[in-house]
């Protein structure tokens, strides 16, 4: 088996090569309930990380992998760089329920890949867009145990279509990252 090419950091200048037109707006072929996922990325000192890149991948509203569209755009995938306050914002739709290996339905979740200066390889995790009670049986929620709260987005009190989710690279409430 061939040796894989190793990962290296994205560095601070990735915007030069990784800008997509409307990259933070996820396209789908079929419509769904509009969702904004937004939050901030913090380092271990609590400072905002202004040079991180968040990418997301998710099922469509039907719970299936998005089908390629007819446009020049990619479907189901987003890319958003953080701003000076470490904030990212992604505009998407509520992912449908996928079926897990055991045949059970999985609660709505978004796959997240995080790149940044200082990350020699990407961090991966998933964020749930659901109430804590609705994710109890999910394999990731179980694996996260007491850290599961770091993977649950909170619905905005005023705008029910907006969900807030912060990322902490380390320290108290360090986000639960996963190996994939």
């Amino acid at each position, binding site marked *: 088996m*061939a040796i894989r090419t*190793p990962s290296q950091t994205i560095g601070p200048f990735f915007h030069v090569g990784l800008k997509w037109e409307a990259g933070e707006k996820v396209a789908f072929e079929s419509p769904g309930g509009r969702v904004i996922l937004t939050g901030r990325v913090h380092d*271990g000192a609590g400072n905002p990380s202004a040079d991180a890149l968040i990418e997301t991948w998710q099922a469509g509203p039907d719970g299936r992998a998005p089908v390629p569209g007819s446009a020049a755009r990619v479907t189901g995938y987003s890319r958003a760089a953080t701003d000076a306050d470490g904030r990212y914002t992604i505009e998407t739709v509520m992912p449908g329920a996928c079926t897990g290996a055991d045949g059970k339905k999985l609660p709505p979740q978004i796959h997240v890949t995080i790149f940044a200066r200082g990350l020699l390889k990407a961090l991966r995790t998933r964020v749930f867009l659901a109430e804590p009670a609705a994710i109890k049986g999910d394999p990731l929620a179980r694996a996260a145990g007491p850290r599961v709260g770091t993977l649950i987005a909170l619905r905005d009190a005023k705008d029910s279509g907006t969900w807030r989710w912060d990322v902490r690279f380390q320290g108290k409430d360090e986000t639960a990252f996963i190996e994939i």
Partner: protein
Amino acid sequence: MSARDRIDIDPPYDYPAYKSTILRSPKQPLLRVAPHPMEATGPVFPRKFVTDSEADLTTWGKGAPLGEKMILTGRVTDEDGAPVRNSLLELWQCNSSGRYAHPVDQHDAPLDPNFLGQGKVLTGDKGEYRFVTIKPGAYPWKNHPWAWRPAHIHLSLFGNAYSQRLVTQLFFPGDPLLPIDPIFNSVPDESARQRMVCELDLEHGIEEVALGYRFDIVLRGVKSTPMGV
């Protein structure tokens, strides 16, 4: 480390010689969890996502960029040798004097009005790709005294599945800065480090116009799963 790696291929998160890792590396171990069905799928980039001109970084401006023109070719495969077809490969780099066309880059080296330093292609049926660019310069980066990055090109790959996503850097053979670059040397294994060094490939150059360099990229297999799951 993936279950299928017999050696550590990727660098660790915590690598204090590269100072920015100190506050950004997670302290808790990564969770091991059964793969989610969406991880074996991935975004499909339509042909129209890229235009042919995005493979040539030397024709972006009104004139030719300064520097040593080069042709970069290679194949993207997975670790079982299967070609990774129709897959997005994005590239960015500094110009020949070591300066990025980026507002945060304060290095006192000139910008080149004819060089932006960004390109993208979709791989072909055999996983092959080709870029025309110029050889990037070395640049200082304040990580430690005499910290100068060896000449490198940043590459971003999607593979054909979400789990194959990779961002890496390409280096040049014989660069005297390689042994003292903490980012290159964060990869613990020598043979894995050599995966990031391209080869001079005259066959794919253009005589008296551009040198050729070859860089094959190997992504993880789609079916590899975390250890013990």
